[in-house]
């Protein structure tokens, strides 16, 4: 469904990605693993339209697309849970759920009622407990913030969901809830790209594991065909 070919990204003199090829199929969880600085987040930012690649192409349903803005990526059905969560602390939950794509009347007047209603609906569908959709995000816990970011990606309703370390800041119970959500997305036919440092989670959830090292893909394995030992060895030395 989503394919990336030969993705190269340079920042000044630093080459962050050196020609990444990978594909995502529907109803599949692909884990993207790699050491710090391997290029995972950069790759996610390219697929989500925040960065444009210097070389390479991205195909959705075999048609070449240009993801030059986050809106364009959303339009093509790609939603993202960013590592930094991309929340504005001073704004309330409802606005954060709609950040950058606020529902409007006449094209510019915010439809506050719709925003609040849909935010409440989405949060209760996902069983997310929050004091109020009117509460500023600043006063919420790490888990609650994470839940908002996930709920937002869910609400965008894309077919591809990118998750950059979705459980990094969470306690055990909260993390379990988010991981349940990842499985839900897959079972509903979404393609999920999951970045995680936690190999336990990766092996429990992922159908496929892609290993990045120094900006290159060193392995693309079916989870059932590999072992943690092999993946750790790929992560650290690039060979199995």
């Amino acid at each position, binding site marked *: 469904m989503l394919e990336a070919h030969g993705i190269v990204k340079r920042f000044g003199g630093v080459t962050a990605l050196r020609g990444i090829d990978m594909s995502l199929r529907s109803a599949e969880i692909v884990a993207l693993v790699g050491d710090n600085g391997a290029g995972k987040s950069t790759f996610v930012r390219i697929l989500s339209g925040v960065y444009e690649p210097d070389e390479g192409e991205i195909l959705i349903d075999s048609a070449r697309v240009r993801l030059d803005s986050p809106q364009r990526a959303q339009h093509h059905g790609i939603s993202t849970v960013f590592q930094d969560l991309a929340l504005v602390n*001073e*704004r309330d939950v409802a*606005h954060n759920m709609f*950040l*950058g794509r606020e529902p409007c009347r006449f094209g*510019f007047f915010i439809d*506050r009622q719709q925003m609040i209603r849909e935010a409440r609906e989405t949060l209760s569908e996902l069983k997310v*407990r929050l004091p109020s959709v009117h509460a500023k995000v600043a006063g919420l816990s790490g888990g609650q913030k994470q839940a908002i970011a996930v709920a937002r990606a869910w609400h965008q309703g894309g077919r591809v969901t990118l998750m950059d370390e979705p459980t990094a800041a969470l306690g055990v119970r909260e993390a379990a809830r988010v991981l349940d959500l990842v499985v*839900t997305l897959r079972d*509903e036919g979404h393609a999920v790209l999951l970045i995680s440092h936690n190999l336990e989670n990766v092996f429990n959830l992922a159908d496929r594991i892609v290993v990045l090292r120094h900006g290159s893909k060193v392995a693309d394995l079916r989870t059932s065909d590999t072992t943690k030992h092999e993946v750790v060895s790929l992560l650290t030395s690039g060979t199995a």
Partner: protein
Amino acid sequence: MTMTKDEALAAPNSSEARLAAAASAAAADAPSDFSAMMREKLLTRQAAMTVVAVLLFAYFSVTANNFFSWSNILDIIRGTSFIGIVAVAWTYLLIVGELDLSVGSLYGLGTIVMSWMIGSFGLDPWLAAAVTFAFAGTVGLFNGVITVYVGVSAFVVTLGMLSLLRGLSFVISGGYPVPYPSGIQSSLFPLGGGVLFGIPAQAIWLFAILLLGGLVLGRTKFGYWVYATGGNEFAAREMGIPTKRIKLMAFILVGLSCGLVAVLNGAWIKSANTTTGSGFEFQVIGAVLVGGAALTGGSGNIYGTFIGAFILGVVTNGLVMAGFAPASSFLATGAIIIAAGMIDVVLRYYGAKATIWRQAKGR
């Protein structure tokens, strides 16, 4: 893989059941929504400053002769109107996380440009007003481009502009007042100096701009994006908000607001003076800060700025009415800005306490 979200949700499946099992309680309920909303509303700087404004107004009404009269209240509003108009635009700029120190100089230069166009070029006052307005907007655009796209800090750019524009005023005027040709008439002039139903035009402009500014900031997509840009620029960009363009527009708005007050001033007094607007930036920034917008960006609102301008206006006028020397208002204004900052610290302390208490209760 063509299932839409709605279809997916309509079809019950095992994953939903699993999710339901993971649930431990229902989502947000109405009563706690209301209490959260009230807490956020009451523990704000704007609420605190409203109380301060009422107390100050009551104090001067009791102690200063002639303070509490219709004509004096109109005087206060007239004296505050230009500050208020520019402060509205400045609030946008501060919320996106930038600042503009050149507003006083731009206001002053605007009045000179307007006189110059009418006196030396013989332009119709309406046309001169359009030129002034466009010029001021262009200066705002310039400040914005150098700050946002070139990357020089707004403090540096606009500090330079503060001096540069004042210098231009002197170059154009030669340091002398630039009067309009004597006896000149125009339908433009009542817009600055007229009175409608006993209310001076400046006051009407002030309230119109306050209303419009508040509406756009609080209720439109542009306003929401202004808050998002200043609150967390990186997050806003990740979610596709064109943060640079939003910042640029805030700079332009400030320039245009300076152009407007320059035109209104010219239409009112039909002359221009090189010293017009000196110290103006201090009053504008004071009003915005007293109104509760944070220097770090992302917070503040137009109501707060209105209260801030009102407090400074009341104190400036009240002290004179109570028999103090006019210069004492500098002292009072400075003290109020610092005191308002201290109120902020106290509110933040109680706000943080309320949050910790709420989380300890497991909410």
